[in-house]
C-alpha cells in the first residue's frame, strides 16, 4: 500500500492553492495571447508560475537527499550548521543534513537573476533599440523624464505608511524601495533593484511592472484628463527640426556613462550597459552586433528571464496580503508618475512664454513608445491639426534615461540612509 502511495505522491501532495496559482498563471497567459499585453514577458511568467506550482516543485528543486558526511560534520562542529544551510543549500531536520539539488529554474534564477545578469543583458538590447535624437533635438524634454519618476518615491512613502498601519506586511525601507521602483515603468530596472533589496518579491514586482506597462493606454488618459483642461490639451507646440551630428550621437552615451558612473558608481551596471548598447547602434560600424543585440540577445534573455521570474511565484510566497498590496501600489506608482510629469509642465507654463502642452509631461514615463503615442492620440482628439508626437517622443526617451537614473539613486541612497 505504501509503495502504491509512493506512485501517486503528486496526487496526494496536491492542494487547493495550486489551483489558485494555475488561475493566476492562466490569467497572465490570457492577457498575453488574447489582449496582446506584453506577451514576451507575461506568457513565460504565467507558464513559469504554473510550473513551479506543480507538486514538490521539482522544476525548482529535486527531492532532498540525506548526506551522512555533512550530518557527521555538523554534529561534531555545530557552529558550521549555518554555513551549510546558508551557503551550500542544505536543510537540517532532526539533526540530519539533507542536500537539496537545485532544479533547472533555480539554476537559472541563481545565475541570471541573483547575479543581475539577465536584467543588464536586456539593457544592452534596450540601448541598441533606443534613438536619443528626439531628445538631443529638444533637450528641454529631459525635465519631464525627471518629473515622471515622482511616482517611484511617492509609492515608497505609501508603502512605508501602510507598513505603519499593517506591520505584518513587512515593508521596510528596502522592500518599499523595491515596490516603488515599479514606477520606473522599466522591467529590467525593477528586477535589478528588487534582486538587490527584496529577492523574495521579484515575482509580484515583475508581474506588476510588466502588467502596468502594458496597461499604460488605460491608466494614463484618465489621469491626464483629470489634471488638465481642454484648453491646455489643445496647446500647440512648434517643432523645429534640428539635425544631430553623428559625433554627438556617438559621444552622448559615452559622456552619460562617465558622468553617471562618477556620481553614482552603483548605477554603472544599469547606465553603462544601456549606453553600451546605444553606442553599438550609433557607431555605424557594428551593424551585425546592433542587430544581434536588438533581436537574438533581447529574445533569448527575455525568454529565460520571463520563465525564471514565473518560477518565483510559488503559492507560499505569492498568496500573501503583501502581493495584493504590491499590485495595488504598482498602479499608484504609474498614476503618480503621470501626475508628476503633467504637473511639472503646468508649473513650467506659469514661467515660460512658449507654452508646453501638459500632456507631454505624461510622456516622460519610461513606457516607450506607447506613452508618446497615447499623448499624440489625445492631442489629435482635441484638435485634429495638433502634432506633438516628436516632443512626446523626446519626453518618452528622456523617461528611459530618467528611470535608470532614478534606479541608480535608489540603489545608492537606500544603503546610505540605512547606515546613518
Amino acid at each position, binding site marked *: 500500500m505504501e509503495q502504491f502511495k509512493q506512485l501517486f505522491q503528486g496526487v496526494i501532495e496536491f492542494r487547493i492553492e495550486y489551483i489558485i496559482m494555475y488561475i493566476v498563471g492562466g490569467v497572465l497567459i490570457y492577457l498575453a495571447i488574447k489582449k496582446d499585453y506584453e506577451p514576451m514577458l507575461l506568457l513565460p511568467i504565467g507558464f513559469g508560475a504554473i510550473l513551479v506550482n506543480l507538486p514538490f516543485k521539482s522544476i525548482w528543486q529535486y527531492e532532498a537527499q540525506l548526506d551522512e558526511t555533512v550530518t557527521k560534520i555538523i554534529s561534531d562542529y555545530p557552529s558550521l550548521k549555518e554555513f551549510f544551510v546558508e551557503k551550500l543549500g542544505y536543510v537540517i531536520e532532526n539533526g540530519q543534513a539533507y542536500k537539496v539539488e537545485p532544479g533547472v529554474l533555480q539554476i537559472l534564477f541563481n545565475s541570471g537573476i541573483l547575479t543581475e545578469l539577465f536584467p543588464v543583458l536586456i539593457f544592452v538590447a534596450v540601448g541598441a533599440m533606443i534613438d536619443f535624437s528626439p531628445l538631443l533635438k529638444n533637450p528641454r524634454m529631459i525635465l519631464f523624464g525627471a518629473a515622471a519618476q515622482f511616482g517611484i518615491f511617492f509609492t515608497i512613502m505609501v508603502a512605508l505608511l501602510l*507598513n505603519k498601519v499593517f506591520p505584518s506586511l513587512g515593508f521596510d525601507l528596502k522592500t518599499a524601495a523595491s515596490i516603488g521602483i515599479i514606477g520606473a515603468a522599466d522591467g529590467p530596472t525593477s528586477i535589478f533593484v528588487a534582486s538587490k533589496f527584496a529577492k523574495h518579491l521579484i515575482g509580484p514586482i515583475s508581474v506588476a511592472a510588466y502588467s502596468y506597462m502594458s496597461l499604460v493606454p488605460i491608466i494614463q488618459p484618465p489621469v491626464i484628463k483629470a489634471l488638465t483642461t481642454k484648453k491646455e490639451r489643445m496647446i500647440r507646440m512648434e517643432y523645429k527640426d*534640428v539635425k544631430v551630428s553623428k559625433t554627438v550621437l556617438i*559621444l552622448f552615451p559615452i559622456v552619460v556613462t562617465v558622468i553617471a558612473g562618477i556620481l*553614482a558608481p552603483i548605477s554603472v551596471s544599469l547606465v553603462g550597459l544601456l549606453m553600451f548598447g546605444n553606442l553599438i547602434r550609433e557607431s555605424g560600424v557594428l551593424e551585425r552586433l546592433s542587430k544581434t543585440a536588438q533581436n537574438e540577445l533581447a529574445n533569448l534573455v527575455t525568454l529565460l528571464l520571463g520563465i525564471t521570474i514565473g518560477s518565483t511565484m510559488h503559492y507560499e510566497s505569492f498568496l500573501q496580503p503583501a502581493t495584493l498590496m504590491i499590485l495595488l501600489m504598482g498602479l499608484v506608482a504609474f498614476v503618480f508618475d503621470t501626475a508628476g510629469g503633467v504637473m511639472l509642465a503646468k508649473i513650467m507654463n506659469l514661467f515660460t512664454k512658449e507654452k508646453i502642452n501638459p500632456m507631454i509631461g505624461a510622456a516622460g514615463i519610461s513606457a516607450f513608445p506607447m506613452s508618446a503615442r497615447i499623448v499624440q492620440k489625445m492631442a489629435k482628439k482635441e484638435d485634429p491639426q495638433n502634432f506633438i508626437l516628436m516632443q512626446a517622443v523626446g519626453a518618452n526617451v528622456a523617461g528611459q534615461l530618467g528611470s535608470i537614473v532614478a534606479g541608480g539613486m535608489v540603489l545608492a541612497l537606500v544603503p546610505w540612509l540605512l547606515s546613518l
Partner: protein
Amino acid sequence: MDDVVLGMQLMQYGLSGVFLVLILFYGVITLLMKALPYRAEDDENKQSQ
C-alpha cells in the same frame, strides 16, 4: 531612525538627485550640440565612400 523619516529623506534626495543629474545631462546635450553641430558635408562624404 524611523523608516517613514528615512523614506521622506529618500524622496527628498532621490527626486532632487534625479533632477540634478538630468539637468546636468541637459547641459551636456546643449554643449555637445553647440560644439559639434551637424554638417551636411559629413553626410555627403559618407555617401561618396
